[in-house]
């Protein structure tokens, strides 16, 4: 090990210690299982993902260095040495492939959810926007906004909310938000070209909610999930009535180590605190 290696290990900072490598790997694994288990997009773990991507990059470099050193060592006396080198290489590559699979699966799952519920997430993001005009159609589904929208928005593309000014992108990552907007714009112009252009003016919006039925479909949070309770005691909490925010309905109480089939909305908060894990 020379001075460059020491500097490099310092550069990698807190994420470089082996204990945090193991914990990060466990966190990524748990996040993957959770992301696969529910139908909404979970909050993007920015810090964790950055650390993981750094480590993957670093590991690829290590493997390339090792492979290079094995190919330019023509010394025939080191044959047994070469055998363990190949073994080490194959172990490192297997480990890398397993981690890459996890990351890829997380990303693909999220992309699938995003393209399925794209309008829902766009509306969610734009409702946080500081620019009030972007949110008008959702915040007041009343007659007045229908009038203005029929007058100004006649193309389906116009109903795609603009999220460029939104700063808080949770639960998405930056790249995902960008994908979401581009994807939905393309989709809207395709719809316009293929069939929506023939519709009456006031039926061309993609977030149409005339007649009390919203055309925007979100993920189903009342689906059941399998969870294991990790904290001491965790109650299942669901909102009692949609009209009253603070009124809650406390259901069964899970105890440590228990596995339950419960509604996702009932354990979502506990999941965010890390007191339950999805199976």
């Amino acid at each position: 090990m020379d001075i460059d290696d020491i500097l490099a290990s310092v550069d990698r900072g807190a994420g470089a210690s082996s204990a945090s490598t193991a914990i990060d790997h466990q966190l990524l694994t748990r996040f993957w299982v959770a992301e696969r288990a529910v139908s909404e997009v979970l909050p993007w773990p920015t810090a964790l993902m950055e650390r993981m991507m750094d480590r993957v990059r670093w590991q690829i470099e290590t493997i390339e260095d090792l492979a290079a050193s094995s190919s330019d060592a023509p010394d025939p006396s080191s044959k047994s040495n070469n055998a363990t080198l190949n073994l080490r290489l194959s172990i490192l590559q297997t480990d890398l492939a397993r981690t890459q699979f996890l990351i890829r699966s997380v990303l693909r799952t999220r992309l699938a959810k995003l393209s399925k519920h794209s309008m829902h997430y766009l509306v969610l993001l734009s409702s946080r926007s500081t620019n009030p005009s972007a949110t008008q159609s959702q915040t007041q589904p009343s007659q007045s906004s229908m009038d203005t929208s029929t007058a100004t928005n006649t193309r389906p593309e116009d109903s795609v909310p603009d999220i460029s000014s939104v700063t808080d992108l949770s639960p998405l990552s930056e790249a995902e938000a960008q994908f979401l907007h581009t994807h939905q714009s393309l989709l809207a112009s395709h719809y316009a070209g293929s069939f929506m252009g023939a519709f009456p003016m006031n039926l061309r919006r993609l977030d149409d909610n005339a007649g009390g039925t919203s055309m925007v479909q979100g993920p189903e949070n009342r689906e059941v999930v399998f969870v294991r309770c990790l904290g001491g005691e965790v109650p299942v909490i669901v909102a009692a009535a949609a009209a009253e925010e603070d009124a809650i309905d406390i259901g069964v109480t899970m105890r440590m180590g228990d596995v339950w089939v419960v509604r996702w909305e009932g354990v979502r908060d506990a999941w965010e605190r890390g007191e339950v894990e999805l199976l």
Partner: protein
Amino acid sequence: MAFPHPRGIIPSEIAFLAEMEMVTVVPRQRLEGLELLGGPIEPLVPPRRASLPLWLALLLKRQRRANIIPPAWLHPDPLGLILEVESQHQDYKNAFSPPPPLPGQPSVQDRAALEPIARPQYTPDGDRYYPSPPFLAQNTAQASTSARDMPALPFHWVEVGNMLLDAASDDLVDPDQTRRLLKDLREVRMAKMRSGVDVLDAAATGGGGVALTGVGAMEVGEERGFVAGVVNGLRKIGASKEQARREAMAEQRANGGYDGTQDDEEEDYMEF
């Protein structure tokens, strides 16, 4: 289509998870320690025992570079005992045998007397983190702590058991008997899972749920689609009932003290 699989991890992904379980090996050759993305690997020095993730242990085993010491539960005696509890014991007629305790959780005998104390670790971001399978040492050779502890099936028992029977049957004690017992256990537990369908209605109501403590990962994977489908159907059937119940509760509250939210709701309704 970015991702074709349904909600919830599928069996091959569950097996992938199970390969992260730590097992004990006796190496046959030296290998220096490695920094893997899943955490560091200790140096292998024969004949000293070492703990490795199952995927690595199987890789070494297939190349005859190591022998795997089977986990304590993967042995005809404890498996026979668990099978007896699952099929005969009065307390476990409709439940699975208790799983191995999590860190900080008292063992089954002490559970009435002692409160569980969850012992969190901390993530690099400073959040609390409670480790759970597959990252607990439930499949290492020294897994069972004391003799009076009842043997228990770990979360990934189906996968770990089958993978070891496939790849390392020469390291197991009486693999044929073990295989038979695993199959019997699976059938007994599958029958319990099916007889539990009646109570699924409880999971369809708001705060309700169905307890499946002691269930294995593969068993969850097998039942996920069915259970989720049934509960979803029941929820839709019961939706109007639940709505009525919620409205009754809201009314009770409104009678106790008037608040403005009721008014808004009415206004929304009138517009449509």
